[in-house]
């Protein structure tokens, strides 16, 4: 063969790195060291004697912990190989994590946080020494207050679900402060709202009432009217919902809640499609939260740390977690003297590196940029929907023929009825092309679901590539279904057997448990 090289095929010939790494304990070589620890100075040792020998009876560890013994570069190499067996949004066209907003986390923000001026700050230092970071957090709070239209903001929580917990904890404290804590024992949500709304409400002691959508997939206002009343503590809803459908009557919902003395809580974890378009407070909400790791670009980090922002109306402000940062003249000060506060929701002031990233992201975009983020995200979504619906067997249930906001919950129902291939099987096969998607929360309201959210970060050609992969897998489902059923084929690992994971006699949650159960 010689030049010229044939054009690239339409579908990428992807193969995930497969290092076939051992478990780290198998790499141990007795005597090797990865790092050495600063030892007590001779004079100090002399002054205090043998502190280990001096431990009280029973408190001195008899056998050293059976950790692996490895030289430094061997540890590094092992973990770098594991990193290569991961994709991550920087490599993957990560539009398949619908609801999770896998957008670009700008590299400059990662660089900015790695300063000793942040890394080496202790949270209880003199406020005078922390003016930079306190001021930055304060300003981020003000920017998020503006974006939500709310009065006050707390950035303490370290994830989305814990931010929702904080919403319900403030709602509970509010009703208790009015003497209505006992009376209001129900929280109303919708089946297409994020399930953490129901889960956190339950954890806070509430009974959860779930509403189902009307025939077109819109939240059912008549159902709300049928159940809301003096027992209602709050409605906790997402909008747009997981279907990407915006509830046009959302203000009516909030007004209904207020008419019975309930509060309205808005899950804006993912506000990506409505930044600068519409705001929580303008619809009358009392509480809302954002995930900084969705809407505001901080990386997902394999499942955290994320960061949450809780924004509240003036009436709810006294209940925010503490301490809060106040601006006194041109100084920033912490105020912990807040008797109605729900108290701490996390150590100190939140996931500070992510707060700096989010601040930097907003500062890089400004008002016009945030609005452009929303608009492009919505354009991308409707464009991708067009491409997906061109695939035979794929559909977008509900709101037929209408536009969607930032994501769509699609269905392979047609393909499934035709071939018996499930959405999960399609998803696993898609990983063979370096793509991935998530199906849906349980229970599956949409049959054979998959949820795509392209965000603003992916180019048109990347969206085309993603759609082409799904089209290819759908073709395979019809023509060579066994290829789909036996996937993955190009992955780090092969089809994994999950049976042992559900049996207490057989599961192995740690290497030591595995050794004990199978080799002793």
């Amino acid at each position, binding site marked *: 063969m010689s030049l010229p090289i044939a054009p690239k095929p339409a579908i990428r010939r992807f193969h995930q790195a497969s290092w076939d790494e051992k478990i780290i304990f198998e790499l141990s070589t007795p005597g090797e060291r990865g790092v050495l620890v600063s030892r007590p100075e001779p004079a100090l040792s002399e002054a205090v004697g043998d502190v280990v020998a001096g431990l009280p009876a029973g408190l001195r560890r008899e056998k050293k912990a059976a950790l692996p013994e490895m030289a430094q570069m061997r540890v590094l190499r092992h973990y770098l190989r594991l990193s290569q067996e991961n994709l991550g949004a920087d490599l993957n066209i990560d539009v398949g994590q619908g609801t999770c907003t896998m957008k670009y986390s700008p590299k400059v923000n990662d660089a900015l946080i790695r300063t000793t001026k942040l890394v080496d700050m202790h949270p209880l230092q003199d406020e005078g020494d922390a003016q930079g970071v306190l001021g930055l957090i304060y300003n981020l709070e003000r920017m998020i207050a503006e974006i939500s239209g709310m009065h006050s903001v707390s950035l303490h929580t370290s994830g989305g679900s814990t931010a929702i917990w904080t919403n319900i904890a403030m709602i509970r404290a509010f009703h208790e402060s009015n003497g209505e804590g006992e009376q209001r024992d129900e929280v109303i949500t919708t089946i297409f709202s*994020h399930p953490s709304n129901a889960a956190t409400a339950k954890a806070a002691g509430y009974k959860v009432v*779930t509403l189902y959508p009307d025939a077109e997939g819109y939240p059912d206002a008549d159902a709300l009217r049928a*159940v809301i009343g003096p027992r209602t503590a709050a409605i906790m809803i997402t909008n747009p919902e997981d279907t990407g459908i915006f509830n046009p009557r959302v203000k009516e919902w909030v007004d209904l809640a207020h008419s019975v003395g309930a509060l309205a809580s808005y899950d804006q974890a993912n506000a990506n499609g409505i930044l600068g378009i519409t705001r929580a407070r303008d619809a009358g909400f009392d509480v809302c939260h954002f995930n900084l790791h969705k809407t505001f670009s901080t990386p997902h980090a394999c499942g955290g740390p994320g960061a949450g922002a809780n924004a509240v109306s003036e009436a709810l402000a006294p209940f925010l977690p503490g301490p809060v940062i106040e601006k006194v003249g041109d100084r920033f000060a912490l105020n912990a003297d807040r008797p109605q506060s729900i108290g701490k929701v996390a150590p100190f002031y939140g996931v500070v590196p992510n707060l700096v990233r989010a601040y930097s992201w907003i500062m890089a975009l400004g008002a016009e940029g945030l609005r452009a983020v929303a608009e492009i995200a919505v354009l991308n979504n409707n464009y991708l929907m067009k491409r997906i619906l061109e695939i035979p067997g794929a559909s977008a249930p509900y709101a037929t023929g209408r536009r969607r906001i930032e994501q769509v919950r699609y269905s392979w129902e047609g393909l499934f009825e035709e071939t018996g291939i499930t959405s999960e099987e399609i998803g696993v096969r898609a990983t063979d092309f370096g793509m991935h998607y998530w199906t849906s*929360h349980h229970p599956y309201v949409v049959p054979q679901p998959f949820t795509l959210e392209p965000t603003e970060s992916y180019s048109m050609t990347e969206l085309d590539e993603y759609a082409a992969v799904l089209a290819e897998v759908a073709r395979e489902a019809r023509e060579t279904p066994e290829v789909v059923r036996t996937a993955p084929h190009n992955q780090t690992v092969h089809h994994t057997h999950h049976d042992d994971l559900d049996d207490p006699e057989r599961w192995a949650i740690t290497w030591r448990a595995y050794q004990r159960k199978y080799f002793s």
Partner: protein
Amino acid sequence: MTRSIGLLINPVAGVGVPAGLKGSDGADVQAAALARGARARSGERAQAALAVIAAAHPHVEIITAEGAMGADAVRAVGLSARVVYRAESPSTGADTAAATRALLDAGADLLLFVGGDGTARDVASVLHPEQPMLGVPAGVKMYSGCFAVSPSAAGALAARWLSDERLPLERREVLDVDEEQIRHGRVDPKLFALVQVPYLVGRTQSRKSATPVSEAAAVTAAARGAVAAMDDTTAYLLGPGGTTLEVARQLGLAKTPLGVDVVRAGGLILADASEQQLLEIVAGAPAKAVVTVIGGQGFLLGRGNQQISAAVLERLGADPLLVVATEEKLTALAGRPLLVDTGNPKFDRSLAGYIRVITGAHTVGVYPVQAPENEGAQSCV
């Protein structure tokens, strides 16, 4: 252990559909249908399901009956058939039952049948209550909850069942109506059995946030919510259904599987009550009916629990029902309302609107209820 599938095709299932007849039970109807140019489609549907099984397990042997009752379709997709039954007149319910028995005797573990409610009822009549069955939808009437959504889906489920011993089972209802009644404009389906049906659950472990709940755990949780909602002074008329069976189990009672039992303060008052007996009980004391979604069509009343009649319910006051069902059951309705059809349209209309459905220990769903305007034998193919 290797598992085996027993396949049974009702060769005349569905012939009534293109002929405009509501059902295909009875030789004269079948003859009438065939005379109108009808074509049995159960064979094609069986092949669609079997093709999926063949792709996944090309060497599996299917235990089946001769000819159009199974072996023809099995061979048509390239699988080997072990024929254990030969029909004399391949169209009666008695044949279906006899064939089922033969498949079971030959060691079939999963009864895969191709037909409609009538076939399901005949298969269930001889099946051990713990033995799974699965329907390839091919009938005219399909009120029962034991059918997959399509022939290919049934094939995929059966193929999975062969290789995955942990595939879960769920208790579903087998309902059937007398077709002669349908053709004369009346629908009065009866509950004939509660059977075990395999179902697919998400298994890619793609979790976000809340722990997903298996259907079995969801039934347990929903039943727990119903038990928690009961008080000691009210008599509860426990209707039939998989979820109400679990309610009874949690109360420590052995429930009449297909009947209505009455409990109060955790104790059984009356088993398998008739409408008349229910009327007597509710006349004297506060009572509530505990009902669940029966079958695949979303009926709360009037399908399999006709003892809980409008007359009974009218005596229960403004809030006569304690409805218990899993979220999955509600979402499976794909937005269609729950239905009440007691035969008393005025009473049915009084229930229409939104109803609270207990879905868990601390969760309630709010779901629309309708009285069917134009009741009939709508098929769910």
